[in-house]
């Protein structure tokens, strides 16, 4: 029983980490209508930027973190301007493919800049496990979960309550309407990317603290996709809920099914869920229903 609860708790914490990556995804989708398949690469790129400032340039933490956030904001704007601005008004296929191109390109660039071998990521949150009664979990994951919740609250506030966020949602829905209200489409999409990069970097910090980092970590982006889909592509609060569901499912599959399937159950679980959602309810739990007319 205690084992079961421990798996459950770990699942929830891992799920929240998936959710924060999913959130970066959602932020970009909600303002730019771009399904960023390069999300994992963005996370790892952000992680490498942090690594560069802390381990490479050995700045203290309180300088390095703000600096990295500024750097990724600049990067986000650059990515938007260079790759996505020319794609405004192009087909969905082109928009998906450009993120695929970005995914491959960023992998290549990461190897050129930081090499292919794994590097230790600095310890940002102490690694001492937290022991709570009979349960124990890694501190970094626990703090990561708390940070994710905070980020969720902030992002939800931005997108639902501020006019700024509402403007971003308007851009996502219809560029012409947004422009007719005086909202600059280009700037909004740029902001969306900058926000997406910030959230991704926060995800990298919480996820990678004390771990090792190389370009292969970006597989995490693909694992966050089912979370995004289950929660709904537009829904900010859907992400943590879906993250917890999938995290718990994965943890339980790993604990009870993996021994029969040579480790495939936990790996396949999120994607099987994803297929099921696509067949039953493509908009996810909380996503917007697509209204389509001829």
């Amino acid at each position, binding site marked *: 029983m205690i084992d079961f609860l421990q798996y459950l708790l770990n699942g929830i914490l891992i799920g929240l980490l998936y959710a924060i990556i999913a959130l970066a995804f959602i932020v970009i989708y909600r303002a730019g209508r771009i399904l960023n398949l390069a999300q994992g690469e963005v996370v790892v790129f952000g992680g490498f930027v942090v690594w560069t400032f802390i381990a490479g340039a050995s700045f203290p933490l309180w300088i390095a973190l703000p600096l990295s956030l500024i750097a990724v904001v600049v990067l986000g704007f650059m990515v938007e301007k260079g790759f996505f601005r*020319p794609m405004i008004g192009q087909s969905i296929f082109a928009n998906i493919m450009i993120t695929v*191109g*970005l995914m491959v390109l960023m992998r290549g660039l990461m190897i050129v800049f930081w090499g292919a071998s794994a590097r230790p990521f600095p310890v940002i949150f102490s690694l001492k496990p937290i022991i709570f009664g009979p349960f124990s979990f890694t501190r970094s994951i626990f703090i990561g979960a708390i940070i994710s919740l905070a980020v969720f609250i902030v992002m939800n506030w931005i997108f639902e309550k501020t006019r700024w966020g509402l403007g971003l949602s308007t851009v996502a829905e219809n560029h012409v309407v947004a422009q007719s209200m005086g909202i600059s489409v280009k700037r909004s999409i740029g902001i969306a990317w900058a926000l997406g990069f910030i959230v991704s970097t926060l995800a990298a910090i919480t996820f990678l603290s004390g771990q090792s980092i190389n370009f292969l970590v970006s597989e995490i982006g693909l694992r966050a996709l089912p979370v995004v889909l289950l929660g709904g592509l537009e829904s900010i609060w859907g992400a943590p809920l879906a993250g917890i569901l999938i995290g718990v499912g994965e943890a339980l599959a790993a604990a009870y099914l993996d021994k029969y399937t040579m480790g495939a159950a936990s790996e396949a679980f999120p994607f099987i869920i994803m297929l099921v959602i*696509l067949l039953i309810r493509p908009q996810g739990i909380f996503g917007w229903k697509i209204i389509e007319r*001829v």
Partner: protein
Amino acid sequence: MAVLPCGVHSANYSQDKAFIRTPVQWVCFIAFLLIVFAGPFFFPSRMLGIIIITGITIIAVVGLQITVGLTGQINLGQSAFMGMGAFTTATLAANFNLPFWLSIPAGGIGGALLGAIFGIPALRVKGFYLALTSLAAQILFPLLITRMPSKWFGGPNGLGLAPAKIGGFTLQSDQSLYYLIMGVTVIMLFFAFNLTRSRVGRALMAVRDNDIVAEIMGVNLFTYKTLAFAIGSLYAGIAGGLWAYYLRYVMAEQFNLWSSVWYLGMIIVGGVGSILGAILGTVFLRALQELITIAGPWFGQVFPQAGGEALWYSGMNIVLGGVIILFLIFEPKGLAHRWNVLKHSFRIWPYPYL
């Protein structure tokens, strides 16, 4: 078909439908066949290997073009469908001793079945969501294949198979495989070119341009969307079967997401929606791949920190990603469009425009 030299007119339908219309086209066609046929006699063996792989890739990419370019159904899992074909062929050949002329078509059918299954969601979802369906197929494929009983697909170790035999003759050398693969490629291309001008092809294009309108006009969406995936992955499956006989060893890792991305890149470079584009794109990117492999050592001296094998990998990545992005931004219609423009200006030469 569209662009013909001045003064070529059709007097009846069979003329109008003919593939090859003018003496020049006949000359080119026969010359092409001759070069293909004579290839093994003057190509060096390394070149031959490249051509064989390119031929196999062309089949898979043309299949992808039918799903993605012709029908507009995004497919990120072509490589998995190819893998399905390869494993079907391999297991039939290794475990049931089927001759290659049965096992390769069976591989095609295996791929087509898997593709059709993952194509079914296309009825409900499109765009982003469909991309995710095929992505799930791509990610689940190796997980499933390697966990099957190792008697079927060899488990994590993969599966080896004996060379193809016809009568008493073994297709083991590159030369003999070259003829097999080129023959199949030409047949598959012939079907693909014809598909674009058939009733089915037009229905598929109607689905691409506006599926709701197509449905109103009486195109059964379920049939045609599934069919698009089935045909596309049939090509993939046959390519996989040939691959199995060429390498004579199949492993799940050979059919990963990155190959799928390469195939998509080839479509984009060639021009979305054009069979000719699929061929041009494949040849272009394959050539680029070879170039990087050759230029790899030089690259290593300039960027020493990238180091070793990873460097080759990163060079490939940067080039592939860069090419996809550049083409999407600057030449979204691809090489096929360039080619048509060239042909057009050649036709009206010496005048600059009509």
